């Protein structure tokens, strides 16, 4: 069975009586649908439906039409897929930031830097950079941030350095995948590497779906494979649209009609001495858990739907997180590509290098490196504006609550991994419902510390956390 043919919609899922139920039917398994999508009218219909779906998310008609146009070229001329994916995003950058020449220049410079580093690793695999690409890359990026922090404020130097930091912050993890792509052949794969540096389908700072090495493995090779993956893309986009509509109703009902506060609002009221009722505090936390899953599902599905439309059979970013029965399983199902980033660049390098004789210790150590160092570095540099506005040390100090969040998560995930070997209880209640509820309860509590607004001190957050359990001090 080839990697492509075997590609499942999601990580392995236990069978249940509802396993075969689908709100959106599995049209990619219908031979007539797959054949039709390979014809010219079928392709036009597919692109039209996909374009309409994207229009739902993109208020700018030109952007939705432009994206559909590029997918159209890929659909009708798949042999030019890599070229289109390499060139189109750069054209879009120039178009989007036309009014800001500094940003366009910085973006093109960073893309050139990424490709330059990729070629260096390929050309000199024994060099210091090629042997430790992630450490070198992240050290260089950190140095740039330090230089920007200590540059004279309101000077040209400061403007240029922070401009570079702003752009590099969005590209650094894409470059990281490029410089660690060990199986790449520059003569053949350079366009795909360029395409992966800034995916046409969009992304957060986390590369969706990883880098060129992964894209090569999941790329549709035949018209039938392309038809199947595009139908899966269309389905996923339809699901994202449904979830977005549901999310809208959810917010209107819970936060509009029932006036339940958001967690940040509940903490703010607690800080100002006018705390909301106990049950509303709990309601805010419980809702936040589901809202987080909803919003991550929507944006992740949208990116992956587009990647599939471009011919890449990528796994979903969020896949049935509520069915997770362990913390580690939830982390895997909730934000798959961010978890992959932490695993690729932090967990495995630590796991393979340190405490090899001590199985438990190396697991805990690698998890702490991934969550406490990796996750913190990711968010500190992603939210670089805190460092610019507050200075290096105050900017880092403002991360204190999220640091606690990462530490608690690291402890939870370490324990979850160490307990994996124990036999699982059987039955729906003890085997499924109870563990799933436990996972949800853990995350409901831990997201008290997950506010990214950094509006509250650790003391204020702890005070609010304690108040959930009637502890006031």
């Amino acid at each position: 069975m080839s990697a492509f043919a075997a590609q499942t919609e999601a990580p392995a899922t236990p069978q249940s009586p509802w396993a075969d139920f689908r709100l959106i039917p599995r049209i990619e398994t219908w031979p007539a649908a797959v054949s039709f999508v390979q014809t010219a009218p079928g392709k036009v219909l597919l692109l039209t439906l996909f374009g309409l779906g994207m229009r739902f998310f993109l208020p700018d008609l030109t952007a939705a039409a432009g994206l559909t146009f590029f997918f159209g070229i890929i659909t009708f001329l798949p042999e030019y897929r890599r070229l289109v994916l390499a060139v189109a995003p750069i054209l879009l950058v120039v178009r989007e930031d036309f009014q800001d020449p500094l940003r366009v220049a910085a973006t093109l410079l960073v893309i050139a830097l990424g490709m330059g580093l990729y070629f260096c690793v390929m050309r000199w695999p024994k060099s210091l950079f090629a042997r430790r690409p992630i450490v070198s890359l992240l050290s260089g990026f950190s140095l740039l941030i330090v230089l920007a922090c200590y540059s004279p404020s309101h000077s040209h130097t400061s403007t240029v350095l922070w401009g570079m930091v702003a752009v590099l912050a969005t590209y650094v993890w894409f470059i990281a995948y490029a410089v660690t792509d060990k199986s790449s052949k520059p003569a053949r794969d350079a366009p795909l590497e360029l395409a992966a540096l800034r995916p046409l389908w969009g992304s957060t700072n986390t590369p969706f779906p990883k880098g060129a090495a992964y894209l090569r493995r999941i790329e549709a090779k035949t018209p039938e494979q392309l038809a199947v993956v595009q139908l899966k893309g269309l389905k996923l986009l339809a699901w994202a649209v449904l979830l977005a509509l549901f999310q809208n109703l959810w917010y209107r009902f819970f936060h509009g009609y029932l006036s339940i506060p958001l967690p940040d609002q509940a903490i703010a009221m607690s800080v100002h001495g006018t705390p909301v009722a106990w049950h509303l505090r709990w309601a805010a936390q419980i809702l936040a858990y589901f809202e987080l899953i909803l919003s991550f599902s929507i944006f992740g599905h949208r990116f992956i739907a587009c990647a599939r439309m471009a011919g890449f059979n990528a796994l979903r970013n969020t896949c049935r997180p509520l069915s997770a029965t362990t913390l580690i399983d939830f982390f895997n199902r909730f934000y798959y590509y961010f978890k992959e980033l932490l695993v690729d660049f932090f967990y495995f390098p630590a796991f393979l290098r340190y405490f090899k004789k001590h199985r438990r210790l190396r697991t805990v150590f690698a998890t702490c490196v991934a969550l406490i160092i990796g996750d913190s570095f990711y968010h500190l540099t992603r939210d670089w504006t805190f460092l610019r506005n507050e200075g290096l040390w105050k900017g880092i100090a403002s991360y204190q609550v999220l640091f606690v969040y990462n530490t608690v998560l690291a402890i939870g995930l370490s324990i979850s991994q160490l307990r994996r070997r124990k036999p699982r209880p059987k039955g729906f209640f003890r085997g499924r419902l109870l563990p799933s509820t436990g996972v949800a309860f853990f995350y409901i509590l831990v997201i008290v510390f997950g506010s990214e607004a950094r509006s509250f001190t650790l003391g204020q957050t702890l005070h609010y956390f304690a108040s959930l359990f009637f502890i006031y001090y």
Partner: protein
Amino acid sequence: MTEKAAIHDFVQDLLLRNEDRAPLADGDSLLVTGRLQSVDTVDIVVFLEERFGIDFAQIGFDRDQLDSVDAIYALTQNATAVR
């Protein structure tokens, strides 16, 4: 038991632990398809270290080399040849 059969059995056990009872062929993709997760990769790494004495810190680590029973077997052969 041959080395490849041992690898096959180990991978099959991992799949069963994840309640994946689908048949496993030696060429089947495991990670790209999502049948196995990163946390399962950790188990494979430890298995290869203990059973075949492979030191990934020395030979370099590429998760693509663990994507199927065939790929894992090829990795063990290459690692043995290098030693």
